[in-house]
């Protein structure tokens, strides 16, 4: 009776240990796959924020040293409508938007939220994986074309992604570097 135990118990422990190791490896690969998808989505988010506003810009100013871009564009404030000479005027506004990498106001990238339902209960970190912008460079190609090169990295998988694009700004009157 005891001899059966002496053979069966170590075998059992070895079997359970190997199964658990394989399971952990598979779940880790699943988590890496999710982090890669999140990285791609956040890179696209950053690019779209800049391209959509730069496309309609009237004035644009880039500063690579402090990694800042300033876009001035024309918006229409239709909260204020006044009637003059029997025609309605909608108030015209110019809005200036600064994009900096790490300020709290006008922050560029959408980091996934860290509140309780989205954190992993065991380790406590963000269940999608954090990402980081490695570099975001602006170049002036000519008077009306802005070229952007973005490089982002996922802190979970250490994978990097680099995207380059250019935007043609038809209404841009002033482009400073």
């Amino acid at each position: 009776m005891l001899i059966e135990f002496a053979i069966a118990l170590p075998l059992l422990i070895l079997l359970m240990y190997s199964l658990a190791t394989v399971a952990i490896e598979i779940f880790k690969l699943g988590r890496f796959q999710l982090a890669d998808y999140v990285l791609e989505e956040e890179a696209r988010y950053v690019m779209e924020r800049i391209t959509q506003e730069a496309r309609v810009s009237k004035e644009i100013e880039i500063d690579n040293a402090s990694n800042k871009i300033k876009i001035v564009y024309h918006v229409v404030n239709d909260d204020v409508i006044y009637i003059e000479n029997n025609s309605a005027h909608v108030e015209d506004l110019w809005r200036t938007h600064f994009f900096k990498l790490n300020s709290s106001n006008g922050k560029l990238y959408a980091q996934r939220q860290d509140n309780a339902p989205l954190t992993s209960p065991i380790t406590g970190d963000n269940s999608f994986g954090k990402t980081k912008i490695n570099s975001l460079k602006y170049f002036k190609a000519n008077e009306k074309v802005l070229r952007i090169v973005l490089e982002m990295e996922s802190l979970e998988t250490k994978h990097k992604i680099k995207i380059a694009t250019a935007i043609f700004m038809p209404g841009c009157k002033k482009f400073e570097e």
Partner: protein
Amino acid sequence: MKKIFNERGFLLLDVIFLTVITALAAMILMNAAPRIRNSQSTLQMTALYLTNEQFAYLESRAVNGEPLPTNFLGEPEDLITKNFETGKEIKFLVDTQINDSSNPCKVTITVTIDGRDDFEVKAERMIWLVKEEWRRLRAD
């Protein structure tokens, strides 16, 4: 009688262990398909942004009235990427077709991974060339 009682207990224990271990092994094996991410969606996104880049340069030339060339007008370093750094270099080949004013310009990007053609992204945009024309309105 005591001996038989003990043996039945161990038999039940063995059966339970076997069931649990088999179930665990089946769950793991069913999930053991390779979890390598399909990197094509990222490459397609990168290729689309590259077509936007080529169109931006083409549009800026069209507004100035210059003729449109068919080579890649951006920086050559944008054509090579190492996304997700799997060690393989990924190159983009940009092919531009300029048609006359009634047909759109087509930009085709072929992505090659490790020298082998992987997939192709096509984008079209109508780009109107700005032409100046002076016409005499009155016969003086």
